[in-house]
């Protein structure tokens, strides 16, 4: 005789554990007045070059630090450390994304309360990081002019979970025949109204605008805590 079965409602997020840790981190960051920005992109889109520049530029006036995730090697941490900012590497082994728990562990023994900004560079991957909240205030998705304007259409979910799209390597735009209009149209299709910024870490184009934008966002986020 076939056993009787019945359906019992559960309604729990599969990544509940990650979300719990991420929420606690977000609260902790907020209480400490640290504005946290994460960066996602495909490998080679220029996250590290962009972040090195941001750490240098923002670091002149503000206290900044970075966590950087990679499957293997700490090359990126060394590159970022050239900015003078404190940097910690998270080596994920075979895991293709960062999780909130890894961020929490990496921060052990650090003093984020003495920071204005913490940047988290995710593993180069446009798929998996989309599912994991890291407790960040702002998620940037980067894509370079050399990758093709249809990147947002190929990876709509990561664009949809990010707050701002940063188009990198703008100094190469004309050399590679970058179709700016198509790129904007595609970003807007997958994430209507998304803020788009254009930068070149090499030439410095767009960096001032980005820093101003960041400062404004951070000031806005810190406002309620100071009232």
């Amino acid at each position, binding site marked *: 005789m076939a056993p009787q079965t019945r359906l019992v409602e559960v309604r729990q997020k599969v990544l509940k554990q990650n979300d719990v840790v991420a929420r606690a981190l977000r609260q902790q960051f907020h209480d400490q007045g640290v504005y946290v920005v994460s960066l996602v992109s495909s490998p080679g889109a220029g996250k590290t070059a962009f972040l090195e520049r941001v750490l240098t530029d923002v670091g002149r006036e503000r206290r900044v630090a970075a966590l950087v995730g990679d499957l293997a090697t700490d090359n990126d941490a060394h590159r970022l450390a050239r900015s003078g900012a404190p940097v910690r590497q998270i080596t994920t082994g075979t895991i293709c994304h960062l999780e909130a728990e890894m961020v929490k562990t990496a921060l052990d023994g650090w003093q984020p309360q003495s920071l204005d900004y913490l940047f988290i560079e995710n593993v180069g991957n446009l798929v998996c990081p989309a599912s994991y909240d890291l407790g960040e205030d702002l998620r940037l998705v980067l894509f370079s002019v050399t990758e093709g304007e249809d990147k947002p259409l190929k990876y*709509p979910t990561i664009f949809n979970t990010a707050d701002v799209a940063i188009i990198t390597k703008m100094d190469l735009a004309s050399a590679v025949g970058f179709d700016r209009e198509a790129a904007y149209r595609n970003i807007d299709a997958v994430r209507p109204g998304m803020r788009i910024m254009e930068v070149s870490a090499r030439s410095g184009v767009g960096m001032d605008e980005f820093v101003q934008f960041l400062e404004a966002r951070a000031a806005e986020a810190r406002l309620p805590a100071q009232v």
Partner: protein
Amino acid sequence: MHELSIALSLLDLAEEEAERRGGVQVAAIHVKLGPLSGVVAEALLSAYDLARENTRFERCDLVIEQVPIVAYCPNCRGERAVISVQEICCAECGTPTPDIRTGRELELSALEIIDGPADATCGSPAESA
């Protein structure tokens, strides 16, 4: 591919929920999955097949219910389906709809549990009669 870690998280959660209900036997795990969850149904099914080996869920099915993307359309003044994941616009009038209401789900929605004698598929360690 992060579906394997998702499948492992799913089994941890299913275990916790089954225990919370007194160690019930589970015949199937029901999941709601949205296109904006970042998880692909086919990949999750394969990963689940691997993840359940040698666990109490070895013979449990995974049932995936795909949830469509629904957003608030400011023009229609109501919740509407969107054209596609690549075009987050109202399927009826074409207005861009950034205010997404469903489609991000990655949720253990229900457990199908077995009533009666514990000789059936899976769940708690088999009890001899």
